[in-house]
């Protein structure tokens, strides 16, 4: 008997509904967020395309996927949300889906309050009228969720992802969880220069603000942990989509690019690298699907499934992006070619919601494989 055997048989395929959702998101992004558009928007200093977000969040209904229908959402789940994340990763689109529609939404859902301020906020998030983010550093691992509940409402939090797009901050404190409007007095959101151009980070400073208390410390800690677990789990789907784009583009490029009177993709040293990468990508898909399925099912297996997915997929995404740059040769180093956007996103993602090493620690704990 192992310490933790598999709790339920996961469904690792994509359903027809999920494929339909993927098509809708992909065609929207193809129209409105191709690579030149994304590069132009990150250069413009206003990375978020509000119209695109409106179409995605409200038009397709992506923002409310995790929210039950009685609370104004789509009543879907993490499997569907993962497909959206995958497509957003494939296009490295700046959109606060993972941070708001997944992490903040799951924090609020975990509070279990259908009415009151949390319910109202959920309604706004589900409809795409509002964006909320959890005011913790983007690197916070699920295992640190409980520890995030410390200190007071007056504080500075650095490295908060998508805070510049947020209407509401969910702030964990020693007193419980608070909702703070970003437009209110005493709230400063100072953009940082981030490695990943497509997911802005900011320093949030709260000074003498009044927030709305959403939960006591106990339930708040559980909710924050749940939100971070969802974030880490679905981040694997982002890493999958990103890695798949890198592989597809690299294969396409090396088939067309000729050197020494041959397509460079016919050289065995390059073929083997791309074949290895393909194997990693199909493995990442199984890991990411498993995490999404476990989250959707509320399985007791979810913490392990998420830790496995993050410990594996981070490396795959970074490797895919690095191979993409290298196998594109000089053009891979240019600003015009989008490869750099993927490399920057992949590297930042390898830190987000806990590094691979942190997730391996979680595996060690869950599987009773302790350090010396």
């Amino acid at each position, binding site marked *: 008997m192992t310490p933790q055997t598999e709790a339920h048989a996961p469904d690792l395929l994509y359903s027809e509904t999920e494929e339909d959702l993927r098509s809708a998101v992909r065609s929207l992004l193809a129209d409105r967020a191709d690579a030149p558009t994304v590069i132009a928007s990150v250069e413009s200093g206003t990375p978020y395309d509000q119209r695109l977000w409106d179409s995605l969040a409200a038009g397709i209904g992506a923002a409310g996927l995790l929210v039950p229908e009685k609370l104004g959402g789509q009543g879907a789940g993490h499997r569907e949300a993962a497909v959206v994340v995958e497509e957003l990763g494939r296009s490295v689109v700046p959109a606060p889906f993972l941070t708001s529609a997944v992490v903040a939404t799951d924090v609020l859902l975990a509070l279990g309050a259908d009415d009151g301020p949390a319910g109202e906020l959920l309604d706004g998030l589900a409809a795409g009228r509002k964006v909320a983010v959890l005011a913790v550093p983007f690197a916070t691992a699920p295992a640190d969720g409980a520890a995030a509940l410390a200190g007071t409402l007056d504080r500075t939090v650095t490295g908060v992802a998508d805070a510049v797009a947020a209407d509401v901050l969910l702030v964990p404190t020693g007193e419980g969880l608070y909702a703070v409007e970003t437009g209110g007095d005493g709230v400063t959101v100072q953009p940082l220069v981030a490695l990943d151009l497509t997911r802005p980070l900011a320093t949030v400073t709260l000074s003498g603000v009044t927030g709305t208390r959403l939960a006591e410390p106990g339930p708040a800690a559980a909710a924050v942990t749940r939100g971070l677990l969802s974030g880490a789990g679905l981040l694997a789907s982002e890493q999958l989509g990103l890695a798949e784009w890198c592989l597809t583009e690299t294969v396409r490029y090396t088939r067309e690019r000729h050197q020494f009177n041959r397509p460079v993709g016919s050289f065995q040293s390059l073929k083997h690298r791309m074949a290895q990468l*393909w194997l990693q990508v199909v493995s990442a898909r199984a890991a990411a699907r498993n995490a999404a399925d476990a989250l959707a099912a509320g399985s007791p297996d979810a913490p392990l499934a998420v830790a496995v997915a993050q410990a594996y997929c981070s490396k795959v995404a970074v490797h895919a992006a690095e191979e993409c740059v290298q196998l594109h040769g000089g053009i891979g180093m240019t600003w015009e070619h989008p490869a750099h956007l993927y490399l920057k996103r992949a590297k930042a993602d390898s830190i987000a919601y806990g590094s691979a090493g942190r997730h*391996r620690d979680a595996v060690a704990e869950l599987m009773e494989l302790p350090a010396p």
Partner: protein
Amino acid sequence: MSATVDAAEVRRLTRELLAAHPPATTGRTDFLEARFDAGLAWVHYPVGLGGLDAPRSLQPVVDAGLAAAGAPDNDPRRIGIGLGMAAPTILGFGTDEQKQRFLRPLWVGDEVWCQLFSEPGAGSDLAALATRAVRAEDGTGDWVVDGQKVWTSSAHVARWAILIARTDPDVPKHRGISYFICDMTDPGVEVRPLRQITGEAEFNEVFLTGVRIPDNRRLGPVGEGWKVAQTTLMNERVSIGGARIPREGGMIGTVARTWREQPALRTHDLHQRMLTLWVEAEVARLTGERLRQQLVAGQPGPEGSGMKLAFARLNQEISGLEVELLGDEGLLYSDWTMRRPELVDFTGRDAGYRYLRSKGNSIEGGTSEVLLNIVAERVLGLPVEPRNDKDAAWKDLAR
């Protein structure tokens, strides 16, 4: 595929078989023969040949029903080459007479098969093979075979072999090959153990000297043996993905148990490496599970061609780590006596054996390097290597 056979029908037939041949009072071979005749051997095979013309996905229904009743199985590992390679090839290319003669004893396990493909001069470049088959001069139409094969597992216990041999050296190498069924008891067939890195002789060399094969033991047309062999080789790689593997079901489970039970062996370096491999083994398991689900859903993906690569690498890394983890014990080896096991056993015996045996995982059944080429060309659509052996006659190639 018959529309009338569904899970309920398969369950009914399984109950009927069990009622007519209670496992507790029926001999093993009798039960297996009755199961074959009931069409419950491999349900996707034709009626009369051990099947029901039913979807392959119904086989687990039969297997589960029989396992629950304590029915004997046909020891698929012992007859793996017959089941996985010979049977689908005979089904695809055999005459009615060949199918009737060979499939039943093959499935029941009365007759073990081996595969006479690889040669000392033709490993990854299998189509370069030099074993010759020429028509006998006596006008019988028989073939006379001369050559040497290698890496033949089970040859020392096999009754039959699938064999590819060159029947026309004057055409390009892929076009001059024919495919035969060889009787391993015939005069001129000599099996010699081939001792390996582990000390045991799991494989053999097979020397063929003037072996006569009647023409009715040829599979497919003369000169089209390469096409027939493709079916065999495809099935060799597809055979993965059948059963569900539990978490820690492979080699990593052994390492994890040692880690839990022997705290004194733990070091920080080994901990980090073990956790990385634990995660990779779990992901490989999930990837295999996803492939299995795709097959059941009737959407086979190309993942199968990559799984062997993943398992080979993992087996090698995990078994290497295991030797180090064991420390003093890792310096020892159980037994260097030459033995000739009937079964290929990747995971049995001790850590040293596993480490050494796993080195074969990236060579047997297609080297990892060749599989990477196959993935690159067939899955990713990358351009093929330039080659100079396609249009030249086999006899003019460098050897």
